[in-house]
């Protein structure tokens, strides 16, 4: 990326790239966002992690000015969300492929550039920069509808960056793409991060949040139920405890009852226990044997975001 894509570096007195204060949004009887507050520092990448329907996209759309909150306030670099200043500062990559399928890659970028007020040499430079960023230079003349899924995703992201925004909203940018394309998208985002771009990244893939984000907000039922670095979230939920994953065989009711007795959780046929120290494993093994259960498989693992989410909500992330 060229230096001209660098986002402005925030001074200590400059307004924050994003401030969300006690935002509420209801759709009929459904409360999609229920009092979320969030602030981003310049150059920070914050992940919104949560299952489908958690309220992530509604929050993103409110930041983009496309949803008007019923209560609370959303500001982008001090400007009210949806205002001209906020729109100019914001680059939104929607979850959908928000492109013109009958236009070529270049024509799409030009169109969105013009909508942001770019023209002439400046527009052509922006198009060239975005094509390079998305590695689509050799596909510039290709009709968008003929691109592969991964290329469309990259173009979708490039269209959000055409006007050199200072805050990027990436709403599940890797949905439906293969591993190779996903890695390419990660590289694009890491390039943005290296330039100091402030980013909000929504996903329900915890490995993406772990890899790309400085802080992670776990969103469920329209609320942020935990916010912090990955390490802080794990520590807050598990401290120094580890997880033991065991596969036990025996009468079905008996296994479940035995796991529940030891404050474990059954997921499919796997039991999960939290232990303060690995030495507690021996007691578990003994207990299983004395209860007439056969231990088929056993492993010890450090808790991750998935574990945190399960711990906080009692549900799997992809439920």
């Amino acid at each position, binding site marked *: 990326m060229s230096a001209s894509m660098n986002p402005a570096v925030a001074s200590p007195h400059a307004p924050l790239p994003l401030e969300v204060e006690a935002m509420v949004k209801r759709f009929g009887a459904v409360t999609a966002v229920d009092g979320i507050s969030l602030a981003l520092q310049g150059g920070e990448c914050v992940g919104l992690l949560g299952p489908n329907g958690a309220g992530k996209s509604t929050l993103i759309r409110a930041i*983009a000015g496309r949803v008007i909150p019923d209560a609370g306030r959303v500001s982008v670099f001090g400007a009210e969300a949806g205002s001209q200043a906020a729109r100019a500062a914001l680059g939104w990559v*929607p979850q959908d492929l928000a*492109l013109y*399928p009958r236009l070529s890659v270049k024509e799409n970028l030009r169109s*969105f550039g013009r*909508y*942001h*007020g770019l023209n002439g040499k400046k527009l052509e430079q922006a198009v060239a920069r975005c094509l390079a960023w998305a590695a689509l230079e050799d596909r510039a003349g290709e009709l968008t509808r003929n691109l592969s899924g991964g290329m469309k995703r990259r173009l979708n992201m490039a269209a959000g960056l055409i006007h050199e925004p200072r805050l990027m909203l990436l709403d599940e940018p890797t949905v439906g793409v293969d591993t190779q394309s996903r890695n390419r998208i990660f590289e694009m985002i890491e390039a943005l991060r290296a330039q100091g771009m402030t980013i909000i990244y929504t996903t329900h893939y915890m490995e993406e949040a772990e890899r790309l984000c400085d802080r992670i907000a776990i969103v469920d039922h329209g609320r942020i139920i935990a916010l912090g670095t990955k390490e802080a979230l794990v520590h807050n939920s598990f401290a120094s405890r580890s997880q033991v994953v065991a596969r036990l065989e025996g009468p079905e009711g008996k296994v479940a009852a035995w796991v529940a007795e030891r404050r474990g959780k059954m997921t499919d046929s796997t039991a999960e226990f939290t232990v303060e120290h690995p030495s507690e494993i021996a007691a578990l093994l003994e207990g299983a044997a004395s209860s007439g259960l056969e231990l088929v498989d056993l492993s010890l693992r450090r808790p991750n975001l998935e574990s945190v989410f399960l711990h906080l909500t009692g549900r799997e992330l992809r439920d």
Partner: protein
Amino acid sequence: MIIPIVRTALLALRRDRVSLVLSFVVPIAFFSIFAAVFGSQRDTMPKIKVIVVDQDQSRASRQLVKALQIDGSLIVSTTPAPTKNQPAPPEFTAETAEAAVKAGDVSVALIVPRGFGDHPISFGPDATGTAIELLNDASDTIAPQMVSGLLQKAAMTAMPVTMAEQGMKYSEKYLGTFTPEQRRNMNANLDQLRQIEKRQNADGGTGAAAGPGGGIIVVKTRTVVGENKNNPMLSFEAAAIGVMFLLFTASGSAGALLDEAESGALDRVLSSRVNMNGLLAGKLVFNILLAFTQLTLMFLWAWAVFKIDFFSHIPGFVVMGLSTAFAVAAFGMLLASICRTRAQLGALSTLLILVMSAIGGSMFPRFLMPEAMQKAGLWTINAWAIDGFEKVFWRDLPVTALWQQVSVLLAIGIVLFAVARRVARRWEYA
């Protein structure tokens, strides 16, 4: 296995409102329109508007005019329709009647010349009947023939005394002078006829029973509109078909809004500098240009292949083309903003456009339609656009004569676009 398949198909059809509308509503709507136009209901048959100028003011001419006035097939005017708060207008003259035919207010005008009462009918090899002048518009081939026939009928039924007198005159001329007794008998019969005519006049009747025959009134037909045109239907067809397809194109093109809303591109556009006003205005301008280009191509094709006189009507074409394009573009925008999906838009636009085209004159000329349907047609874009293009290409009227059509089309466009803008608020914010 057939029944389960039929059952599944029925369930699917029941939930596919688009197919239901296209399968059942559109055919019934069309059948009703065609039945009303070409059906056998006598009371809905169209009446012919005709202007009659009686320059003679003789007993015979007045009787003839009166007979025409009470004929159920004609709407006869002898004076222009009065304007509100204005003094009653003077009676039509030959000149104002001709102007009215040229302007398309009526298809036919009859001028009963001075001296008609002296020789009202024509008979025999050296016929001397005074000719009634029939002014017509060549685009309507039916009206002059009907009026001509009704004129003969009126003569036969409304002027029994005149007919008898003229018959005696011709009999004497061709058979020889009557004997005094014959003349006495005939005068007695004439007196009886005069008594009957007097009574009928007092009752408001038309006269004696119609006799057989026709052509006893000499009619001199003069085409005052389209006399030099090669095909009276060409300009009508170009405008009629053009406007119908313009409506289809406009609704299809405006449907891009629905595609953009579905793909999320609309959201992305509205999160840029572009707001809903700018977006809709941009779409409207594009659709106007598209419609105008389509019309231009249509008329250029008509010029190149069917020899329509295009290049001497450019100003009128541009004025009517842009007004029509504006109205149809706004119509398309409204449909697109009302509908939730492309499929809905397809069904609704097909239904509305076909009905509008049928009653608005895109499928058959409106003068063929019953009076009520002609009036209903005035609620369509088609009718006003076709009338305007006819004024330009058929009647050779100046641009200033288009004010009424242009005003209505612009008003339609403004209202439809305003409603579309209001409905489009659903896309603005959640």
